[in-house]
């Protein structure tokens, strides 16, 4: 082994990425079907942000008896009570709903008072109450945000890659694929879907789109360099060229977030989980969703418009200068 480790990576990779594209297409297709199935059969585990209702995070003086607690909550007038521990057996999350007349104002406080009487020494660490009106609005604005993000990204790609209908579509379909699979995974594992999950999905969109742009940058550069080479070969060449960067960046991001995944606590788990999953799936979809779409669609190699258009000044068109 040499150090720095980067020297161990071969100078050139010769993977034939496109060879596995049909397999990947089948896998992606099945995953999308599975996502739709999971969403229909199981549905998302909507958090209080979107479903409305109440959450109490409590610490009991001794290990909590969840069945007793659930029974007590129902006796106090709570409906749809869900009780679960996290971390230690003394840390309990209680989720419940109240009928409409009790939901607003002091209903939750009444429950807390009764709980305090039933379990002396109970400590309320977190209280969350979301009324039905607010939750409906949050859900709407959450989906609006996702839609707005996708549209803006599409516009950006359009500006960045003029007449790049293939590029734009490839990128957006790939990003949609990532968002869908991330949502599907959250539904499958029944990870709570909250406003923070929307933020995570937006981060996934941002990260995934960034992967696509970097992929396309390299592809476009090689398309100009090798005008006669078949498209599939250029795609393979471009991917091989940026493989080391893909590996290093992807693993740094995942490793850096890993600590948070385990230490962040229940409030952060959905966010970090979606981010990690999104980074992995975003890397995959650059190679096996975005590029194959371009490959199938084809690019007009003779169209001068397909030439690179720089966002002025970023590109080093200047001749290399020696140090002053």
């Amino acid at each position: 082994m040499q150090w720095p480790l980067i020297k161990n990576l071969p100078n050139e990779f010769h993977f034939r990425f496109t060879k596995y594209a049909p397999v990947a297409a089948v896998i992606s297709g099945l995953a999308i079907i599975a996502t739709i199935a999971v969403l229909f059969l199981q549905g998302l585990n909507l958090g209080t942000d979107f479903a409305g209702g109440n959450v109490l995070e409590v610490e009991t003086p001794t290990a909590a008896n969840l069945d007793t607690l659930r029974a007590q909550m129902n006796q106090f007038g709570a409906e749809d009570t869900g009780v679960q521990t996290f971390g230690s057996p003394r840390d309990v999350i209680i989720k419940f709903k109240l009928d409409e007349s009790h939901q607003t104002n002091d209903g939750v406080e009444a429950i807390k008072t009764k709980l305090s009487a039933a379990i002396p020494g109970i400590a309320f660490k977190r209280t969350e109450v979301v009324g039905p009106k607010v939750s409906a609005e949050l859900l709407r604005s959450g989906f609006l945000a996702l839609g707005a993000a996708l549209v803006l990204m599409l516009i950006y790609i359009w500006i960045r890659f003029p007449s790049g209908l293939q590029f734009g579509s490839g990128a957006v379909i790939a990003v949609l694929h990532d968002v869908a699979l991330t949502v599907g995974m959250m539904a499958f594992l029944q990870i709570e879907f909250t406003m923070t999950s929307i933020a995570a999905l937006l981060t996934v969109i941002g990260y995934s789109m960034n992967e696509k742009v970097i992929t396309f940058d390299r592809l476009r550069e090689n398309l100009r360099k090798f005008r006669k080479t078949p498209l599939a070969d250029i795609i393979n060449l471009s991917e091989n060229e940026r493989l080391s960067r893909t590996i290093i960046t992807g693993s740094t991001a995942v490793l850096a977030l890993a600590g948070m995944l385990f230490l962040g606590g229940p409030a952060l788990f959905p966010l970090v989980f979606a981010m990690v999953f999104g980074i992995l799936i975003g890397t995959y979809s650059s190679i096996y969703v975005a590029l194959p779409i371009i490959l199938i669609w084809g690019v007009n190699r003779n169209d001068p418009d397909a030439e690179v258009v720089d966002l002025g000044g970023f590109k080093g068109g200047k001749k290399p200068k020696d140090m002053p």
Partner: protein
Amino acid sequence: MMNLSRWKVGLVIVAVLLGILFAVPNFLPASVRDQVKGFMPTQTLNLGLDLQGGSYLLMEVDTNDLIKTKIAAVSDDVRARLDEKGIAYTGVAATGTSVSVRITDASRLQEAQATLVKLGTPLPKNPGVMDLAVQQNSDQTLLVIFTQEGIRSTSAGAVETSIEVIRKRIDALGTKEPSISRQGVNRIVIEAPGESDPEQLKRLIGRTAKLTFQMVDETVSPSDLAAGRVPPGSEVLPDDSRGGTPLVVRKAILVSGNNLTKANVGVDEYQRPAIDFAFNSEGAKKFGDATLRNVGKRFAIVLDGHIVSAPVIHGAITTGSGQITGGFTHEEASEIVNILKSGALPAKLNFESQRTVGAELGADAVHAGVVSTIIGFLTIVVFMFLAYGFIFGGVSIAALLVNLLLIVASMTAFQATLTLPGIAGLILSLAVAVDANVLIYERIRDEERSGHRPIAAMDVGFARALVSIMDANITNLIAALIMFVFGAGPVRGFAWTLMIGVFTSVFSAILVSQILLGWWYKAAKPKKLPI
């Protein structure tokens, strides 16, 4: 690209120094911060409620309730005005946003209409428009309509008033800097950091403030007052109109704020600002009787145990309305009107949402956040050293440190809220910042392999990687901006860190790495790059 012009070096040095200046207070104990106040910035990171603990309450002013209250009051007023003029009528009925009344005597219809038109008051923001309109229908029926403009204006006023009422009530608690703001058309958000009891907050907001009218006890001499000798039927209250000097008032309540229906800034006969107020019929009777018995004496208007003013009764006030004069400025008058109005919330407030995080849980979250950030940072450090060696790895770590410093400093300087998701955003920003370095290094490796000399490889590498870095960060910036626009609370905190991270990471990856590698190159003059 690799030329190290003075402005580049200067810019980085200035940024790092400013970064240290703004970031350092976060690591100093409060006592040291107090000592250096005035010499340097002493602000610290603005922690979100999820990190420092606290309560977030979202309330909505019940507009329907507001309209119902207003229409009920209008019905009473219609009866009262018509009775006053001796106009016979039948069937006063309130429906939705209007009150209908049938005038028995057709010949007095015009007079009745003119009388009822006077019930309306001009809108504060648009004095040409009245909040009530009177419409003449067939069958000698008059319809008093609470106009759409009136409803809108009243709702807006109700939100403002509620915020004012709530602020006053919360301030009395002594809770640490609560932020109370309007959200949308008819919502109020309260964010009270620290160990405030949300239950107490909610009780306080849901409760009507106590406003009372009591007689001043003139029998107590100043020396008795100083010695604390007060008769059993009286109490000592601070008189805020005289800078809080104590004044003895009788405990017996003449009228309370529950009987108050109206308070406005008006003018007295000399056109000076004054306060007009009105009681309902019960209040009017009580107040009339009390004033009749106590002409020449003083009574006190008491709000939450403080005397707002203690005017002398010049004559019996039997109309149920009165005017408080006393050489106020317009501001003072509206202030007192506000206080009078704060006696009752203008409409029911519905609690729509609540988030309370205990300080202990917040402290745990801060701990988890700090540990995760350190772990994330160390992971990146180890990874970069292993992957790129001391020189190039070290440069990227230095750039990362500058990046972290600038993020903390910018968040502190802008007082952007740092939330727990924001810490996740911070870690992601660090990873994305490293990506910029990786992109540069991989480009440099490519260029060197394709036959460039080291300096040329570095030059071209930086230049080419810049395009990708910009693209990458613009997509992240778009995502963060959308989160900022659509998100609230913790999510907005996440967006803040991502946005700040985009700028600082581009700055440090491009400029800091470039300068450090430039210096290294000048010193080492390598024949071959160690990556």
